[in-house]
């Protein structure tokens, strides 16, 4: 441990790595903690060396940025204290609680940059827990980290740019992409186009993936409403029943795997445990930690960057990481970095693009209103949509934490990280109330399940 008060960065994705680099440039030696085996975060995930593939193959358009991140990281490594495969399971004022292997570690902190990223957002469909259904993120992990695919003929279902990217990656990897089924209706409104075009490279990437898929005969259908994920007698996924929104005719497509994702959900539990203020973002339809443009939170010494504060993609995450680190440095010594202004402009520009994306790929709240009663909503607790609706009706409660107390919603292994956003929409619809009144599930330690033995195991003081 250094003698100076420790600065800890949580998350080694684009935001965290860029924050760490900025701190190193200013002469600090930050501690970087990440759950993954390798740096890169979700987007630039790397396979273990026996499965190594070319960056171009792994990351497509983002290959250059991926390589840059990995190269940057290698250069950075001697100047930071890096801890891979280390999970933060709790945080308290001045103290981070880590777990690595079967060991618990207490890491003091003075200043903290949270770059915890995002995870897939799920909208349950009847039958979504059948084997063979995975999230888009998991489908990507299979590809990038395990050099395998989730099935031979795959349907991509959900909403958002990631849908096309992963479908493209799967097609390139040799899977048969049965169809890309988009719940939203992107590019229907011309008024969205200028804002979307402001996305620059991201936009160009998206257009390319769609064009490529179309050119290779992959059907892309928009405005669809999934009705049921079908399964064979062995219980495994065998297909999807769906219809065009507002139309009666149903279609059945066969597949042996299905990747689902409706955009991303920020990972915010650490901010929550630290007492950072939250606000509801109507565009992203989720509760997000509140920060200033630079990533400063209301809690002294706590900064946020990247998708963990607002889902804006990897390029903006890197910029936000740098800005958050600059904010931290400026709060330490009153300095104002010359590049901060330009970075802030980038973030503002990204907001416009993001807004357009969110309106184009809006969260399909209607789908939750009409979710059949027998569909599972909270898979950890085996809770159906009907059961949740019944609790709402019988108790007259619409506060998600009250509904949780009465129904066990979100009390299982995922602690509501998976079911939370969809459940909130379901409750709001069932109670005929605004989603704002439903509130948000409170974060509680441990952030992710942790074995008693690990908690009981060695207790190192700091790294």
């Amino acid at each position, binding site marked *: 441990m250094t003698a100076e008060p420790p600065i800890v960065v949580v998350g080694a994705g684009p935001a965290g790595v860029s924050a760490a680099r900025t701190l190193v440039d200013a002469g600090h030696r930050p501690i970087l903690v990440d759950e993954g085996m390798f740096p890169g975060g979700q987007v630039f995930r790397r396979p273990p060396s026996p499965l190594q593939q070319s960056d171009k193959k792994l990351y497509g358009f983002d290959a250059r940025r991926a390589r840059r991140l990995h190269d940057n990281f290698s250069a950075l490594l001697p100047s930071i204290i890096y801890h891979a495969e280390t999970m933060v399971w*709790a945080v308290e004022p001045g103290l981070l609680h880590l777990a690595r292997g079967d060991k*618990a570690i207490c890491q003091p902190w003075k200043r903290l940059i949270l770059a915890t990223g995002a995870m897939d957002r799920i909208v349950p469909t009847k039958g979504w827990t059948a084997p063979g259904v995975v999230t888009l993120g998991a489908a990507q992990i299979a590809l990038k980290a395990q050099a395998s695919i989730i099935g031979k003929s795959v349907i991509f279902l959900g909403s958002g740019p990631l849908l096309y990217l992963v479908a493209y990656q799967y097609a390139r990897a040799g899977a048969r992409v049965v169809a890309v089924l988009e719940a939203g209706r992107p590019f229907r409104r011309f008024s969205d186009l200028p804002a979307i075009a402001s996305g620059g490279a991201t936009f160009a990437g998206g257009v390319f993936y769609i064009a490529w898929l179309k050119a290779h005969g992959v059907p892309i259908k928009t405005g669809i409403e999934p009705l049921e994920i079908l399964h064979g007698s062995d219980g495994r996924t065998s297909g999807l029943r769906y219809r065009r929104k507002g139309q009666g005719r149903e279609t059945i497509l066969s597949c042996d795997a299905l990747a689902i994702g409706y955009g991303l959900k920020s990972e915010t539990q650490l901010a929550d445990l630290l007492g950072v203020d939250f606000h509801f973002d109507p565009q992203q339809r989720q509760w997000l930690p509140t920060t200033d443009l630079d990533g400063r939170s209301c809690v002294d010494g706590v900064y946020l960057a990247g998708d963990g504060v607002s889902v804006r993609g990897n390029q903006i995450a890197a910029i936000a990481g740098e800005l958050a680190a600059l904010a931290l440095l400026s709060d330490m010594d009153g300095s104002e970095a010359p590049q901060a202004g330009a970075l802030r402009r980038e973030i503002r520009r990204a907001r416009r693009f993001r807004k357009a994306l969110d309106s184009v790929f809006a969260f399909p709240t209607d789908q939750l209103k009409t979710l059949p009663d027998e569909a599972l909503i909270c898979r950890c607790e085996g809770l159906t949509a009907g059961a949740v609706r019944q609790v709402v009706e019988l108790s007259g409660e619409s506060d998600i934490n009250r509904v949780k107390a009465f129904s066990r919603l979100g009390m299982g292994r995922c602690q509501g990280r998976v079911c939370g956003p969809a459940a909130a929409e379901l409750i709001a619809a069932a109670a005929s109330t605004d989603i704002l009144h439903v509130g948000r599930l409170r974060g509680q*330690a441990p952030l992710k399940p942790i074995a008693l*033995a690990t908690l009981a195991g060695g207790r190192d003081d700091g790294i």
Partner: protein
Amino acid sequence: MTVFDLAIIGGGLAGCSTALHARKKGASVILLERGRCGGQASGVNYGGVRQQGRHPAELPLATRSRGIWGRLHALVGCDCEFVATGHLKLARNDRDMVDLVAHQAVAADHGIAIELLDGADLRRRFPYIGDRFYGASLCADDGQANPRLAAPAFARAARQLGADVREECPVERAVPSPLGFEIYVTGQDTPIRAHRLVNTAGAWGANVARWFGDSVHEDVMAPNMCVTEPIAPLIGPNLGICGGGIYIRQASGHGSVIFGSGVGIADRDALRARPLAAVTMDAAKAAIDMVPALANVLVVRSWTGIEGRMPDNLPVVGPSPTIANLYHAFGFSGHGFQLGPAVGAVLAELAIDGRSPTCLAGLSMTRFAGVPDPVATTLPPANCSQHKEEGE
């Protein structure tokens, strides 16, 4: 002008049960709860329903409460997942065993059957218990319940019988008046009027008592709790240990294992409490020590709640020493969940009938005023090793 027969401040289990029982007696009842019924200690506790190991002053209430726990379905329309799994108290050494033997005799006086187990019995009947324990005592009649359901179920039942249960209604102050009491709710100009007043304000009970000049010191405590993923049935009875420390139960039906030990941090004014990681780590260690098979089970959540604690770890239950028709029941010091149903029954009797068949000796507020409480002085001090349990 409406004047209620009875007003209740605080919708925890004690208050909600009071409302139900008073309503059953035909009294007109209003209950005022700052947040939601059961939103504080009563809804977030460990869910232990035990008579074993209690201080003798609590035993009359505890046995009466046990009776009500067994009849919950008839009373409130749901059993609140109460199951008489038994409560097994483990002895670490022969001294603990002596305590258990002594307690067996005291409990027997109250009609509670407790069975003593030596080391061999313990290992034969409860093979999953760690092997360092010396013996145990089992109260088969004790058990566990789901705290999230209990107070709301009482509130619902009271409401159905016509009680006026008002949530999101913080009481700012109350004053005696010629008719009884005037109670002021934040944001409302006209006071609520009632002939009698019950203070079941939990960790805020002493605060309410102070409005009437009843001054006692009530501390705050936050028992540190954890719950695991569900596992196959493993642990039968609710487990405790002599002298306090770790307590463990497996939720019957669901399969998750709930354990607690030590305390987190509570801020009573901010209505905030949080568990402490270091305490959670110690608890995990102690839990593995008690049930080694838990080592590889995953903890999914930790939490705590805000509980009032009296200097002698016994609650205040009984009439105000200074104001007529005012009754207090607060400061349950980590064991008011089991007591809650009976506390309500007794408060309703005191307030409506003027007396209760249940003995409250030793629980009166006067014990802190230097006023000799005739029975309390003959009872053992509450902080001896037997009664130190932090929240079970």
